[in-house]
């Protein structure tokens, strides 16, 4: 290397290093523009093999042009949700969402409805109603109901047409400790392996307090007396009675109260006989009991009702019918069938207030009605002389009145009504508790699940509160307690059922496709992913990106900077310079 060449090289290398240093000090800004990669959230709601397979296919198909993330983020351009039901978590309203519904193939037979009472008294069978639907005609199905792991009912049915629906009503006995988890399963007959093709659960609690009934016999009346006796011989009821035998002479039980007494609210149901003796004040008290207390009033006439106060209370059009021979009334709602020969045919004055027709005459005329009155019910029996045939049909008279008044008492508003949604939870699932106070007089309310307090928020309706809680992580039964403190402190305890598997009814809940409809997306099946891919490519475009870059902030500049200085030093040393 000649000296001139070396001097040039030294100068050039030094210049490069100085230039880099100067540029770093200046830190110039470079503005860029162009299209970036859109961020696409591909979310599998359920951890299933099918969902993961779909997700992998979508990542392969769209990963080259989109930035795939597993969760919905705030900057996601769109989302693809894979699953079989509407997600629990909310989705941003502005987000474009497409869905891939991975629902299992529809079973040949499925449960579409399962109903059981929310609570029952001790020693009472549970009425279970189920609706089953099949795809094909000629399908024979087995419906099994089990409680506490024990099969208590098995019914078989053969369907004769496609998409036929069969209603099954069963009375089952509770097994084990309350609350009872009723499990219904339907499967094609002869296919024991597919026993779980359609399964649903319901929870039934135990009513620990007796059903409180007050009976008023305003004059001696066989009709009311035999209703009272039917209840008194059943340990599920706490029956108090006032029987007016004559003017100023009455027989009463120790816990009975007068109609106008506010303590009447401690009863769930009031039974009244001798209606022509009802005064206007009595009617007002009964009306208040129904509307404010939410209780049930049962009117048991034994003759045509002509007195004005009683007619006002009934508010029904009444026609008397006398028969030569007793006829068996057609009862509904699972009530026992009564015999009667003297009937009052009841008709509501306007359509829409018919309430429940509990029993009808042979020609279909209503004889026994249950009508709404405010928060409560009015139950009117037009079977005037049914008590005469009380021994027939295995004491159907007693069974009818016990069943009817038990239902009325159970439907009466308790001081604190607690509802849990959903009734059964999976571990760590979010649940809601609804509390309704019968009398909300500024009382303080506390609630807890398994000792953990729940914050209750007031609802628009008076006395209604709502709270959210998370189920414990371990399955089992946890106590849920709601307490009211104040002048009359009282509380309610429920057992919360948490178990790993909670089957929902087929077709219950919102479908996943609903979220695609509401978020401008499309819903496809796993077999139509190419259609989804085309939709995403056409709809989810890459955003225009206006970038600002500072190139000198790259650490890579250190490399040429150091290299230049090192080379310059080497050249100088080879030339013998220092």
């Amino acid at each position, binding site marked *: 290397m000649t000296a001139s060449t070396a001097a040039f090289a030294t100068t050039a290398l030094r210049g490069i290093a100085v230039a880099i240093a100067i540029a770093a000090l200046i830190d110039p800004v470079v503005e860029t523009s162009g299209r970036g990669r859109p961020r696409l959230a591909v979310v599998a709601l359920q951890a299933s093999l099918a969902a993961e397979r779909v997700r992998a296919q979508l990542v392969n198909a769209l990963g080259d042009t989109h930035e795939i993330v597993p969760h919905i983020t705030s900057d996601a351009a769109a989302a693809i949700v894979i699953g079989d039901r509407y997600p629990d978590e909310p989705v941003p309203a502005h987000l474009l969402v497409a869905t891939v519904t991975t629902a299992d193939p529809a079973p040949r037979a499925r449960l579409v409805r399962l109903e059981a*009472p929310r609570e*029952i*008294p001790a*020693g009472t*069978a549970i009425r279970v109603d189920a609706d089953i639907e099949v795809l094909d005609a000629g399908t024979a199905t087995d419906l099994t109901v089990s*409680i506490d*792991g*024990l*099969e*208590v009912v098995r019914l078989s049915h053969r369907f004769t047409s496609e998409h036929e629906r069969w209603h099954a009503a069963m009375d089952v*006995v*509770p*097994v*084990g400790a309350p609350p009872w988890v009723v499990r219904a399963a339907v499967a094609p007959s002869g296919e024991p392996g597919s026993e779980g093709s359609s399964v649903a659960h319901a929870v039934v609690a135990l009513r620990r307090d007796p059903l409180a009934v007050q009976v008023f016999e305003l004059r001696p009346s*066989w009709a009311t007396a035999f209703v009272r*006796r039917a209840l*008194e*011989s*059943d*340990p599920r009821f706490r029956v108090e009675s006032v029987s007016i035998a*004559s003017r100023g002479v*009455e*027989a*009463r039980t120790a816990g009975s109260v007068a109609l106008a007494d506010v303590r009447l609210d401690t009863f769930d149901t009031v039974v009244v006989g001798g209606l022509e003796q009802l005064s206007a004040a009595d009617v007002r008290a009964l009306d208040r009991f129904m509307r404010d207390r939410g209780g049930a009033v049962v009117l048991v006439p034994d003759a045509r*009702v002509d007195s004005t106060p009683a*007619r*006002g209370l*009934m*508010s*029904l*059009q*009444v026609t008397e019918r006398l028969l*030569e021979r007793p006829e068996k009334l057609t009862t509904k*709602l699972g009530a*026992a069938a009564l015999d009667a020969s003297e009937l009052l045919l009841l008709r*509501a*004055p*306007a359509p*829409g207030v018919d*309430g*429940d027709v509990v029993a009808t005459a042979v020609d279909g005329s209503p004889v026994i009605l249950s*009508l*709404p*009155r*405010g928060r409560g*019910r009015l139950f009117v029996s037009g079977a005037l002389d049914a*008590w*005469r*045939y*009380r*021994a*027939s049909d295995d004491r159907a008279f007693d069974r009818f009145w*016990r*069943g009817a008044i*038990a*239902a*009325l008492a*159970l*439907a009466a508003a308790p001081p604190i009504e607690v509802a849990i949604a959903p009734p059964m939870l999976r571990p760590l699932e979010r649940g809601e508790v609804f509390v309704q106070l019968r009398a909300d007089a500024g009382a303080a309310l506390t609630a807890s699940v398994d000792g953990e307090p729940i914050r209750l928020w007031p609802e628009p*309706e008076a006395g209604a509160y709502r709270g959210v809680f998370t189920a414990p992580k371990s399955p089992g039964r946890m106590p849920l307690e709601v307490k009211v403190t104040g002048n009359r402190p009282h509380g309610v305890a429920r057992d919360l059922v948490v178990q790993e598997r909670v089957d929902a009814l087929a077709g219950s809940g919102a479908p996943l496709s609903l979220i695609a409809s509401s978020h401008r997306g499309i819903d496809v099946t796993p077999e139509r992913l190419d259609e989804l891919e085309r939709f995403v490519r056409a709809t989810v475009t890459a955003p225009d990106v206006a970038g600002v870059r500072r190139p000198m902030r790259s650490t890579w500049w250190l490399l040429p900077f150091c290299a230049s200085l090192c080379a310059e030093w080497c050249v100088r040393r080879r030339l013998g310079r220092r």
Partner: protein
Amino acid sequence: MNVRKPPVLPDERPGIRDTVTAVSRRGRTIAVVEAATWGAAASALSPALGVFVAVAVAVWRWRATRRPAIVRALERAQPSARNVFVTADELERDALTVKPAVRTRVLADAAAIARSVTPGDLFPAAPIVRAVVAGLFAWTLATTVLWWRTVRDHDVPPSAQSASAGGGSGPSSLHVRVAVQPPPYTQLPATTQVDPEQLQAVEGATALLTIESAARNITLEQDGQPRTLDRTGGAFTGRVELTRTGYLLIAAGGERRMMPVVVAPDALPNVRIAAPGRDLVYPGGNPRIAFEARATDDFGLRSLALRYTIVSGSGEQFDFKDGEIPLAMAPRDPRDWSGTASRALADFGLKEGDMLVYRAVAADARPGGGTASSDAFFIEISRLGVAAADGFTLPDEETRYALSQQMLIVKTERLHQRRNQMPRDELTEAALGLAVEQRMIRAEFVFMLGGEVEDEEVEAEQSSELQAGRLENRGQRDVRAATIAMSRAEKALTGADTAAALVAERAAVAALQRAFSRERYLLRALASRTRLDPARRLTGDLSEASDWRRTLAPLPADRRTALLQDLLRGIAELTITGDVPATFSQRARVLAEEAIRIDPAAPQLREAATAIQRAAADAADSARRQAALGQAAAAAAAEARRSFAAPPTAMRPLAPALGGAFADALNARTGGGSR
């Protein structure tokens, strides 16, 4: 000392090879037989172990049958050979190179010595003998261990047994043979069953139990009454009388066997009077009356008789005289008898106003006799005839109502006569007035009688207001017919149809007269509890009437429902339990006993108990045990369903406040009331 060796011929060279081959063949035969024998001995413990032992022994013994081992054995067997077999072997295998002469000589010596060795010297049969002896011992032990283990188990105290017993899932050593001997009068054959799940017998049968068990003591419990059985010969025997449905529980050491017993009762004879079969009233004369009585029974009849009672007198002075009319019997078979008799009225010596009440009485063949009688009928002497005889002795109250009904007929007749002269509206109004009157009479009847009662005995238990002892009879039916006729009359009068009303009213009077006629009143069973005293009505002091406090008697605890709930819970626990078969079996047998003790007479509970016991026996077979438990659950649930109260009526839930408010609004617009 040098001994001259025998001359060796060249053709003797192959002799050692033959010897080795023969010895090897025997050795291998011995090895195979010995291995098989040891394997058979070991298979007494386990078949797999037997195969393993056989293979091991065969491999071990096989090593001694190879040529080097045999050559060494020959050397050991003939120490005088001084290694000549080993040298000959090496020469034959060309492992040693020597001069031909030496080779010839060595081979010749070896062959000469080998001739003195027999295969049996090297492989004797003694190992086979030893193996056979061992096999016999092992199999003897295996076949007898079950027996003496059972004996040993029963030697330990019962407290120690209960911890380890339970029947287990293995084959049971408790066998029960039951010979059921029906009562002799039934003429049914005896039956014998072995290990029955359930016993069925006629009431009064005798069951002879023969129980084979290795236990020292056996306890037999019949319906909660335990007793100890004695061993007779090789088995325990016991005799039980089967008089009612129940159960037998056999406890033998750690094993228990429960057998539901279903006893079919011997029904009472069914007796009826075929002729005359109705009440007769004669004004006098001497008519001849033919009687015919029939009786049937499920197993056989012993007697059939026609008995009578003559009632004579009047007022409070009545005389009763009993007698019997001999029947000419004509039995069709032992279970169906009939008898006839014919008597003139004068034979009974009846006077005016006397009455003869007769009935047929039959007894079946059981010891002590189950006796039943037919309906009773009467024969009365009355010159007034049938119509006049009715009603004249009615009690005051009933008479008043009957007379009221008669008065209503008079009124209706008058109205009917005037109907053509009356305006329509006036006729209708008058008829409606009579309808109200008719309704009041009917209401008085119904109220007084406490309604129409189907099951009087049950009603009497619960209702102190009712007159006791009104058993359902024809009089009861007559009362019902009267009230029905009154309803029909009321309906006709409401429609101003006086002709139809008259027919119905007269029918009502006739029914009342039948119901309260003197004869029916006498034949009615007298009240066993309270008798109404009409004379005391409206005679009390009103000032003494005051309030009173009703106190309800506490209801008895529903023990049966609680027990059924516990049974269901027990079955549920057995269904999901992970117990070993022995523990499961023990728990299941306890539950089976609980099921049968709840109510042995309930067929569903017997079925449940039997199924649970079957599950206990099939404890080791998961599928069969689950099937049996499923059957038990179905039966127990069906029985429990009867004990549980019916579910409440399914009322539609109200929309809070809105449903009532909506109804109020509609009511306010349209109004309501009676029409």
